[in-house]
């Protein structure tokens, strides 16, 4: 556990990718096999089921620390992380046990304790706490609560594993994807190109594109490129192998059960096929047509996270799949074939199916780049986020790569608003006021309509923070009312009607685009402007 804790600390503190990579590679070289497997599992978001809840953890920590509950809560609010708060507040260990258990042994304890009574759990946890140093405590708590955000991307871990095992990064990425149980998987099996026959549901790592910064003329002749809409849904992968159907999201979540309207694919798709595409909401009115029309993302949102799907929700928010690419054909990985060939095969496969729930993402025909600039302007009305540009001879790569694929998203919607409330951030911003609420004007009134907490530089945050501290009007718990003076341009990707919000609208991905120091609070947009955007672009 000590070496795992040291790794977590190093990864969390270090600001240089190379240092992180080296720390990971060192760890994977030296750690025992079972620890390596659990490390991969934890860093890729797999963890054992919680055996205690946060309330129990908090109560036991309070008991040991002897602090009043309100002070514990104040501390938590400042630190922003429960595992860390508890690690900081526990009394110092009386004797540090240097022969700590290994990571996997501790996780096995967790698994065994799942069926134990509360008292045994309490004895176990408090005893562990009392013989650990701060770092081990923190990591131990994190293992219990989950949510390890330690500043390491999946890609970096894949790189480190590739370095240590002398395998290609794409083989590793495939090996650690999908469903596998860390308790019974060996490290060798995990990092060898695991065979699909053992795990028919195994998805391929997604190929992701970078945002194109300017007009694509620099990309060369238009005939080398294929343009498509960048549909506004959830990127997904549909797999049919061994007569079974699997639907994965880009977040590597298996979502097969959530989309019953796609289960017919199990019957109609040929075996040994993997299709990359976008799960989108379907406009109800187009259900009877041959080709469906995608609806706004807000509609799809009512389906995400919903494991039980009622008849009503199926009728209100039907889902379809827009196919982008073919990754496996007749049981063979075809990611190394050129895009044009893959697309031809995909078209053939889809044409045999008579369904209006799966359709090929249409290629947009164009002969000049300038033409595409104009086409892109229609994105929003198509419920798309912009365009995708793919080199026709490109292979299907792993992860986010530049060169062959580009996304060319449309400019966001914007509105100028004034900041009226501020709240301290969490985690890395726990000392600064970084979470703001913004309002538009409605006659004499200011109407709050969104929160935003990203988009400014650290320097700007510090500046706004200083303003908040000097210009607080009132305090409601952690929230400060501030003088309505600072104007920001709020950018967002979508807008929908909402009964829960005072303003009547909810924004998608709101963030601060620019600090409009040139604008006075009198010059901000009005509620009317906001509602106009809703009627133009809302669902």
């Amino acid at each position, binding site marked *: 556990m000590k070496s795992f804790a040291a790794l977590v600390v190093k990864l*969390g*503190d*270090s*600001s*240089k990718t190379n*240092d992180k990579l080296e720390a990971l590679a060192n760890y994977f070289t030296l750690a025992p096999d079972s620890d390596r497997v659990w490390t991969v599992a934890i860093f890729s978001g797999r963890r054992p089921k919680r055996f205690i809840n946060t309330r129990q953890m908090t109560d036991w920590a309070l008991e040991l*620390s002897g*602090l*009043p509950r*309100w*002070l514990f809560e*104040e*501390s938590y609010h*400042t*630190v*922003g*992380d429960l595992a*860390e*708060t508890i690690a*900081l*507040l526990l009394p110092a260990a009386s004797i540090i046990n240097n022969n700590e258990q290994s990571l996997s042994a501790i996780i096995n304890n967790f698994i065994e304790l799942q069926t134990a009574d509360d008292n045994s759990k309490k004895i176990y946890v408090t005893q562990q706490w009392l013989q650990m140093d701060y770092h081990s405590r*923190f990591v131990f708590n994190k293992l219990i609560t989950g949510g390890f955000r330690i*500043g390491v991307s999946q890609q970096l871990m894949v790189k480190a594993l590739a370095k240590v095992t002398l395998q290609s990064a794409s083989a590793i990425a495939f090996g650690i994807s999908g469903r596998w149980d860390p308790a019974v998987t060996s490290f060798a099996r995990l990092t060898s190109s695991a065979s699909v026959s053992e795990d028919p549901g195994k998805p391929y790592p997604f190929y992701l594109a970078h945002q194109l910064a300017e007009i694509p003329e620099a990309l060369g002749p238009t005939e080398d490129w294929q343009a498509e809409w960048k549909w506004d849904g959830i990127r997904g992968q549909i797999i049919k192998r061994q007569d079974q159907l699997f639907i994965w999201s880009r977040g590597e979540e298996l979502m097969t059960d959530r989309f019953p309207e796609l289960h017919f694919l199990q019957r109609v798709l040929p075996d040994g096929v993997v299709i990359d595409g976008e799960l989108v909401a379907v406009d109800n009115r187009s259900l009877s047509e041959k080709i469906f029309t995608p609806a706004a993302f807000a509609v799809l949102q009512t389906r995400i996270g919903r494991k039980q799907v009622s008849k009503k929700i199926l009728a209100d928010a039907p889902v379809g799949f827009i196919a982008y690419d073919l990754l496996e054909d007749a049981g063979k990985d075809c990611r190394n074939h050129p895009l044009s060939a893959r697309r031809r095969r995909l078209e053939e496969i889809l044409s045999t199916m008579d369904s209006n729930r799966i359709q090929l993402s249409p290629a947009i025909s164009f002969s000049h780049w300038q033409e595409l600039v104009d086409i892109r302007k229609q994105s929003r009305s198509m419920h798309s986020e912009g365009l995708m540009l793919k080199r026709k001879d490109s292979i299907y790569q792993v992860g986010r790569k530049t060169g062959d694929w580009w996304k060319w998203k449309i400019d966001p919607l914007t509105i100028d608003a004034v900041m009226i409330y501020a709240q301290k951030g*969490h*985690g*890395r*911003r*726990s*000392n*600064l006021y970084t979470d703001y609420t913004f309002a538009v004007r409605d006659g004499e009134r200011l109407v709050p309509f969104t929160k935003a907490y990203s988009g400014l530089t*650290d320097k700007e945050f510090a500046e706004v*923070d*200083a303003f908040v*501290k000097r210009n607080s009007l009132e305090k409601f718990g952690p929230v400060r009312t501030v003088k309505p003076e600072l104007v920001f341009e709020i950018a967002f990707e979508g807008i929908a009607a909402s009964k829960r919000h005072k303003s009547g609208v909810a924004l998608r991905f709101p963030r601060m685009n620019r600090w409009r120091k040139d604008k006075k609070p009198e010059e901000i947009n009005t509620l009317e402007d906001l509602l106009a955007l809703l009627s133009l672009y809302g669902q």
Partner: protein
Amino acid sequence: MSLIQFTEKGLYCAKGDFYIDPWRPVDRAIITHAHSDHARPGSKRYLSHHLSKGMLQQRLGTISLQTIGWNEPLAIHGVKVSLHPAGHIIGSSMVRVAYKDEVWLITGDYKLEDDGLSGAWEPVLCTHMVTECTFGLPVYTWQPQQDLYRQMQQWTLENQSNKQCTVFFAYSLGKAQRIMHALAPLQIPMYAHGAVYNANEALQSNGIALPQVKHIDAHTTKKELASAIIIAPPSAVGTPWLRRLGDRQEAACSGWMQVRGNRRRQHVDKGFVLSDHADWPSLLQAVEACNPTHAYTTHGFTESFSRYLREEKKLWSEAVKTQFGTEEDDQHITESDKTAAI
């Protein structure tokens, strides 16, 4: 009327007609220490400790300044005033103000651990204590400084063996000198950013002995700096100034580094929890040792600390709004560092 009032301009003693660390210009100001949130320009007359002289003159320009030593009482309009070591930075003092039965102690900033430079903190019995509580939450509990020094030394040596120089970001007055002392035993060449170098000079003009540190200027080469120790103010984090240093590892040294999120926000390689402020246990210990009947809290987590004193220690306590620190952000030096020449 109580002996000390909390006014628009700062803490005021009407009987003696003087202010303590006022944030607006006044006739007579007693200054606890030279950090910029405590020592502000524009007042007619200043009173402070001998060891603050150099820094105050550097920062406030030509001022009318009287200096005294610790435990040397002075009568101002019949009010007894004395300074007592606060242990925060060199010259930092707590101010004791006494008239008849009322004894006030204004702590300024302080820490209980003796850093060997600032003078060891001494308890002062009082009836009314105005205490800072920059780190007034129990999550802020420091490791002993010797442990930290060892970690800092070890890390510096590691970097040296990797042919990297080691940069420590620390307030140029106080923390910087503490780090210089802590690392001097390594006998690795030490260099300073202009702001730190200026502070060193001011302290040396006061007769304070400091380890040898070179000024980084236009003539300093990367070669010279390779595997050296460099001390720079926090305001230098992420600035182009750092480019002249070549391959390096950077550390932030501050009490705020206790919280992981703050460490990450700094975008440095390492955070050392080295503070010149009292941690939570020290704050409680200080209040207990000075044994006031009334405790006013300023700087930082004032509400939490005073509530704790009230509810858990059964002590009369109130949070006071001042312009010391900037709420939870210890900005002390950063402002003056920004204007200091590189």
